[in-house]
């Protein structure tokens, strides 16, 4: 049977805001994270990180560090190079330049914070003290501190990347010149979204144990991709994969930052193997800001041509990704601008499109995935410019979107980049948002506020979200990777249901939502289902990334449940004297279709399978357990939109977000409370990205925002009231009609906030194109306009 088969699930618990079963442990401090793992004889690692942005180590002396009491081991790059060449990240694309990031730099140092040496000691404190005793001489090399310098190619950020060019691609090359020549209006800008960090509350961390008695390598890891990490450990460390177990305890937020194989993870495994004692490495906050992968840094040179009615004639985009010194594994630099370029026109009908993506190496931390990945920055550029186009042709921001979104009569609509859109509620989203906002009343309020010297702005963003990263998705974005996940479903003798999945729980409520899915697959109460997750022994999977947990969960559990249901139907059919295909599962009972009276308890049929051979049909296999894979047949698109209302103080440059409206269509919702939680959390991060957060490097490649005093995360004070409405367009490709939605607010809400700031300042002739829109940038733009 096909891995994309859509199993039947009748929604009953699905759609209900079932309280999250993970919360008692989380809210009372009883959840166990990697940092809580304390094994007998456990040692602690600390890592020496480069204080320079680019250079070479000319001398390194670890004698004093090794001599410190309590230190067990000190390694430099010379020690690791022979054991593991590093994290190699490559894509089979013409012209793509692969990189190998060493576990500890032994030749060239390519960014500040790159690991140079590691100390393993009895305690983290001793290990940190020993770091200070390591003497290093550096030869500094010229630094590539920004994308323009990188493109100029005169100075190399990483001598192994010729001309700093990791990848250049022009996959969509329509001739847009005629459309731009014929346009009633052309809007364009060089819209830059700065570097940010996903900043999970739990930083990265790993504990590794190697037992010589069994040869087993057990790894407790804060990761979203345990199976992938296991396989990569086997390959990069040349270690037998069947002896590796990756355990994910509670993960304290991840947001994409933990969806990589990080060099430190391989390093700690090597240390545990070398020492024969468990080794823990728990990243501190400053390391996390330096090194925990950065995200979002794109410059979109985008232009939109519209006709006199505001209809889009053409888009032209040249996107540069400031990708840092190395490619991350598995995403590479392509995760940002390249992926973004391929969805920048969606959800609109754009008849002509030309785009080029350029990914360059710089002396910065490698760019990695973060909620909304490559899509945040292009959505922001597009939506800011659409608002500008609406002002140019004199129509409302809702009207211009209404005139351009893909409508149901257009399905299936294929974008110029090749993405097929077959379902969604784009027009309804625009209408719904406009009604929620009360658009005319807002404009009147904006006008009267302006007279009092107060600048209000409204920004709209409409989005598609590529959810549930799958083989089709990966191929669309030029990753020649196949992916699938599995789940195992077992019906216990007393009729309870145990599900084992590779989905990682890092706060999304998966244990609850997956239980709702499994409950509906068997028609049993949600309390009768347990979700087992958190190690690689029993399930495989690509990872809990890219809004795929719900979709993959439903697909795998649905298929596995169907295999067990078939056996239960066979027994029940025999006992109820009805054909097996007329047996149904409802409310804890198994009954004949259309005849609820001919029924027996679900638990009784389960018990019969285990303990009553007389009830078994001929040649019955009593394994009440099945494992199934799932990989959807096509890309699953969710959609929706956001509106933000802001007030800009033009004297101080401060922006206050007054209100955010969200419309979400993620198909059939499993748990509306959890969906809304995802939206609210994403809106908070969106406000951070649009207004506050920026990782700033100076011209020497020094990260000058290396504490949370300088890297400004949003707090509760920055997050306004958020009003949410739901539309539900069920997916035909996932059991229950479910779609993903975990990233939606970070795809689209930053654009709404950015567009709102621009709307507030448009009356002054001011446009903000560099984000975050900090007080300094707003102040400079406003005072610059005033001088003209």
């Amino acid at each position, binding site marked *: 049977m096909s891995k994309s088969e859509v199993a039947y699930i009748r929604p009953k618990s699905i759609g209900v805001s079932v309280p999250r079963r993970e919360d008692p442990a989380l809210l009372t401090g009883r959840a166990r994270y990697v940092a809580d793992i304390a094994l007998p004889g456990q040692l602690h690692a600390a890592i020496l990180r480069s204080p320079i942005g680019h250079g070479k180590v000319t001398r390194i002396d670890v004698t004093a560090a090794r001599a410190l009491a309590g230190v067990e081991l000190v390694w430099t790059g010379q020690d690791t190079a022979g054991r593991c060449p590093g994290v190699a990240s490559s894509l089979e694309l013409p012209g793509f330049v692969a990189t190998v990031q060493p576990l500890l730099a032994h030749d060239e140092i390519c960014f500040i914070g790159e690991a140079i040496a590691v100390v393993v000691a009895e305690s983290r404190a001793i290990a940190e003290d020993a770091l*200070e005793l390591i003497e290093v001489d550096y030869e500094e090399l010229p630094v590539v501190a920004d994308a323009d310098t990188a493109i100029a190619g005169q100075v190399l950020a990483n001598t192994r990347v010729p001309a700093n060019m990791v990848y250049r691609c022009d996959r969509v090359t329509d001739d847009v010149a005629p459309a731009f020549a014929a346009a009633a209006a052309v809007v364009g800008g060089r819209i830059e979204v700065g570097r940010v960090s996903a900043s999970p509350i739990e930083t990265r961390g790993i504990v590794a144990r190697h037992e010589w008695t069994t040869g087993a390598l057990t790894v407790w890891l804060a990761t979203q991709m345990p199976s992938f990490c296991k396989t990569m450990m086997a390959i990069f460390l040349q270690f037998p994969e069947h002896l590796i177990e990756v355990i994910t305890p509670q993960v304290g937020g991840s947001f994409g930052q933990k969806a990589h194989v990080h060099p430190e993870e391989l390093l700690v495994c090597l240390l545990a193997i070398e020492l024969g004692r468990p080794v823990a490495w728990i990243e501190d906050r400053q390391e996390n800001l330096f090194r925990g992968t950065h995200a979002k840094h794109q410059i979109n040179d985008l232009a939109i041509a519209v006709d006199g009615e505001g209809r889009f004639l053409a888009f032209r985009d040249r996107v540069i990704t400031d990708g840092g010194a190395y490619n991350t594994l598995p995403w590479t630099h392509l995760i940002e601008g390249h992926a973004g370029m391929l969805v920048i026109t969606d959800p609109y009908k754009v008849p002509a499109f030309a785009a080029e993506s350029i990914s360059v190496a710089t002396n910065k931390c490698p760019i990695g995935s973060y909620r909304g990945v490559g899509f945040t920055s292009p959505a922001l550029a597009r939506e800011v410019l659409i608002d500008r186009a609406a002002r140019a042709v004199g129509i409302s921001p809702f009207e211009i979107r209404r005139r351009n979104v893909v409508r149901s009569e257009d399905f299936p609509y294929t974008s110029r980049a090749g993405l097929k859109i077959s379902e969604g509620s784009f027009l309804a989203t625009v209408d719904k948002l406009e009604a929620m906002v009360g658009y005319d009343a807002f404009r009147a309020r904006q006008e009267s506020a302006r007279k009092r010297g107060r600048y209000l702005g409204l920004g709209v963003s409409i989005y598609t979200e590529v959810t549930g990263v799958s083989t089709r998705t990966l191929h669309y974005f030029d990753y020649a990777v196949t992916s699938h996940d599995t789940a195992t479903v077992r019906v216990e003798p007393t009729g309870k249901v145990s599900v084992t999945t590779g989905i990682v729980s890092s706060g999304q409520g998966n244990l609850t939502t997956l239980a709702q899915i499994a409950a509906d697959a068997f028609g049993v109460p949600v309390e009768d289902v347990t979700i087992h997750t958190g190690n690689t022994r029993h399930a495989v999977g690509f990872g809990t990334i890219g809004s795929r947990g719900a979709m993959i969960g439903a697909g795998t559990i649905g298929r596995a449940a169907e295999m067990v249901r078939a056996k239960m139907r066979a027994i029940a059919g025999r006992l109820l004297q009805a054909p097996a295909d007329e047996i149904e599962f409802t409310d804890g009972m198994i009954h004949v279709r259309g005849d609820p009276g001919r029924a027996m308890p679900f638990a009784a049929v389960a018990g019969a399978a285990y303990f009553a051979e007389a009830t078994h049909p001929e040649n019955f296999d009593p394994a009440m357990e099945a494992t199934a894979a799932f990989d959807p047949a096509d890309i699953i698109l969710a959609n929706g939109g956001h509106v933000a209302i802001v007030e800009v103080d033009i004297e101080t440059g401060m922006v206050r977000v007054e209100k955010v409206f969200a419309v979400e269509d993620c198909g059939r919702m499993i748990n509306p409370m959890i969906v809304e939680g995802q939206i609210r959390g994403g809106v908070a991060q969106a406000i951070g990205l649009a207004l506050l957060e920026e990782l700033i490097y100076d011209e020497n490649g020094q990260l000058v925002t290396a504490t949370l005093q*300088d890297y400004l995360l949003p707090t509760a004070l920055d997050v306004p009231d958020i009003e949410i409405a739901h539309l539900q367009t069920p997916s035909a490709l996932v059991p229950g009609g479910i779609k993903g939605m975990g990233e939606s607010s970070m795809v689209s809400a930053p654009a709404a906030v950015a567009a709102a700031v621009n709307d507030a300042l448009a009356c002054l002739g001011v446009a903000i194109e560099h984000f975050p829109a900090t007080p300094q940038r707003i102040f400079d733009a406003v005072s610059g306009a005033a001088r003209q």
Partner: protein
Amino acid sequence: MRFAYSFRLPVTVERAWPVLLDLRRVAPCMPGAAIESGEGPDYVGRMKVKLGPIEMTYRGDLHFVEQDDVAHRVKVEGAAKEIRGGGLAKATVTMQAVPAGNACEVAIDSDYTLSGKAAQFGTGLIDEIGT
């Protein structure tokens, strides 16, 4: 990062100038600074700096790149390494003395490049003392 400041000495520039150039005499005037060795245009010294809660000791070389005893102008370049912690500091310091009647005005203009803890531990910390 630039630090610029000036001070007034109640003596003539002619009298002040040789003293200002005698690093072994001047260094102790700066809390935390010491010259370990050297003569002529090259010196080895150390400097203890306290930024809020963080204390760092740098050790490195000083080199006079320019000295004009007529115009009372001197330019010194320094490169130092943190003794514990791996940070680096580079500085170019220009000192200019100008007569002001019976006194003199000494202007010091220094341009620092810091890496490691000092650069990273909060721009607020450095900005407070820089200009």
